[in-house]
C-alpha cells in the first residue's frame, strides 16, 4: 500500500463516522442531549479557545500533572534505587509497599480529601502517589536485573561502589527506568483527570464534569477531544526525550530491554 493510500484508508472510517454523525443529528435520529451535532462540539472548542478558558484550564491540568509527576518520580527514583540495591531494604519495604500499591490511586482520593482538603495539595499528592508506584517497581527491577557478566566485570576491575553504580548499574537499568517513568507519567495523567472530575473548580476534568452537570454534551465531547490531543502531545514528548537519552544504546537496546 502506498503512503497516500494508507492515509486514505485510515481516514475512511473516521470520515464515515463523522458523516454518519452529522446526518444523524441533522435528521434528529438521536436527541441532542445524547449526541450533539459535530458542529456544536466544534463550536464549543472554538468558543473555549477564543475566551481563553481552554488554555487556562489546560495549563492548570498540565501543571498538576507536572508537579505530581515530578514529586512522585523523584521520590520513586530514590526509593526504587534503594530497594533495588539493598536486599535488606527491599525485604523491609516491599511487602507494605506492594500491599498499598494494590489500592487503585483514585481510591485514596476520598481519604486525601478529608486529610488535605480539596485544594491543590490533595490533587498533587494523589497524582504523585500514582506516578510513584510504577517508578519504584521498575527502577528496583532494573537495578536488580543487571547482567551477571557486567557485574563480574565490575568486580574484576575492582570498581568502588560509586563507580560501579554510575558506570554499570545505572546505565544498564536506564531502559527499565524509562519504562517506569513512562508508566508513571501515564498514571499521573489518568489520575489528574479522575481527581479533577471528583473535586475541582478548574482544569480539563472540571470542564468535563461541568458539561455533565449542565447536560452540555457538546462541552463534554469537546474536552474529551482536547484531553486526547494533549495526552498525545505529552506521550510524544516523553518518547522524544527517551529516544534522545537512549541514543547511545543503539543496537544493543533490544537486548537490554
Amino acid at each position, binding site marked *: *500500500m502506498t503512503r497516500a493510500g494508507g492515509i486514505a484508508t485510515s481516514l475512511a472510517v473516521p470520515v464515515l463516522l463523522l458523516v454518519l454523525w452529522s446526518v444523524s443529528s441533522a435528521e434528529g435520529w438521536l436527541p441532542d442531549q445524547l449526541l450533539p451535532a459535530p458542529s456544536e462540539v466544534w463550536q464549543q472548542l472554538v468558543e473555549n479557545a477564543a475566551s481563553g478558558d481552554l488554555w487556562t484550564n489546560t495549563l492548570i491540568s498540565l501543571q498538576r500533572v507536572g508537579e505530581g509527576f515530578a514529586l512522585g518520580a523523584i521520590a520513586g527514583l530514590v526509593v526504587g534505587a534503594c530497594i533495588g540495591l539493598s*536486599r*535488606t531494604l527491599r525485604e523491609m519495604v516491599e*511487602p507494605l509497599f506492594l500491599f498499598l500499591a494494590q489500592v487503585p490511586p483514585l*481510591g485514596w482520593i476520598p481519604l486525601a480529601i478529608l486529610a488535605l482538603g480539596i485544594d491543590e495539595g490533595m490533587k498533587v499528592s494523589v497524582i504523585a502517589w500514582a506516578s510513584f508506584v510504577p517508578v519504584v517497581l521498575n527502577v528496583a527491577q532494573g537495578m536488580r536485573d543487571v547482567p551477571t557478566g557486567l557485574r563480574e566485570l565490575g568486580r574484576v576491575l575492582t570498581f568502588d561502589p560509586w563507580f560501579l553504580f554510575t558506570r554499570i548499574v545505572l546505565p544498564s537499568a536506564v531502559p527499565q527506568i524509562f519504562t517506569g517513568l513512562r508508566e508513571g507519567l501515564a498514571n499521573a495523567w*489518568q489520575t489528574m*483527570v479522575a481527581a479533577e472530575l471528583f473535586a475541582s473548580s478548574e482544569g480539563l*476534568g472540571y470542564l468535563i464534569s461541568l458539561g455533565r452537570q449542565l447536560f452540555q454534551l457538546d462541552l463534554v465531547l469537546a474536552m474529551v477531544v482536547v484531553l*486526547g490531543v494533549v*495526552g498525545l502531545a505529552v506521550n510524544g514528548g516523553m518518547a522524544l526525550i527517551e529516544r534522545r537519552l537512549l541514543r547511545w544504546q543503539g543496537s544493543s537496546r533490544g537486548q537490554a530491554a
Partner: protein
Amino acid sequence: MSGFSLSAPVLNRIGPKLSPRLRPVVLGAILPVGLLIGWQAIVSAKLAPSYMVPSPADVVLRLQMEFYGGTFWLDVGSSLSRVLRGFAIGSAFGLAAGLALGLSRIAEGLFGPLFMAYRQVALFAWVPLLSMWFGGGETGKLAFVSLSAFAPVVVNTWRASRAIPEKLRELAAVLTFGRLDYLWLIALPGALPGIVTGLRTALIYAWIATVGAELFLDIAPGLGGRLNEGRDKFEVDLMLVALLLLAGLGMVFSRAAAFAESWLLRWRTR
C-alpha cells in the same frame, strides 16, 4: 532476584542474622508494626482529634461490625461482580477486535488509527459521557468497566497476532489451512502469551475502573460507594476498612492473574 547489592554488605551485617525463611517475614513486618505503634502512639497522646485519626482498635472493631452486622458481603460481592462482568464483556470484545486488527491488513488499515486515537483519551474522561448515555446506575458502571478492560486486550492481542512468525504462516499455507483452522491452530496459540498479558492488564484496569465507577457514579453497594459514604459522614474508620479491603482484593486479583497466566501458558517449554 539475586542479592546483588552495593550497600547490602553493610546493611546485611546490621540486619539480624536469621534463617533465610524467617528473614523476609521478620524484615517485612518491621515497617507495618512500626507504623501501627506510631499510629497508636499518636492516638494515645491525643496528637490528633479522634474523628480524624481513629485508633487501630476502632478500625478493627469497624471491620468486625461490617463483617458480622453490616453490608460487608454485599459490598465486596457487588464490587467483585462488577469487575468480573465488566472484564468478561470488555475482554471478549477486545479479543475479537484485537484478532481482527492483527490478522487482517484491511481491518488494521481501517480501524487501527481510530483505535490509537481513542487510546489517547484518559480513561476517566469517558465517565461523564457514558453516564449520560447509559445512566449512572448499574448499566453505566458496567459500560465503563467494560470499556476499560477493552483497550489493553485489543492492544496486546493485536500486537501478538500480528507478530506470528512467517514460518508458521507458510506452514499454514502449505497445509492449505482454512481461515478458521488458521485462527484456531496457529493464530490463537501463537498469540496466546500476548493475549494473556492483555487479559492480565485488563483485569487491573477493570479493577481500577470499578472503584472509579463506584466513586463517581450513583451510590450503590460496593467498596467505592463505602469510601464515599465514609467521606460524607466523616467516618475515617469506615474509609480505612474499605481501603484495606480494596488492597486485599487487589492482592487476590494479582495472585489469581499470575496463577491463571502460568496455567494458560504451561505448555510452553521456555
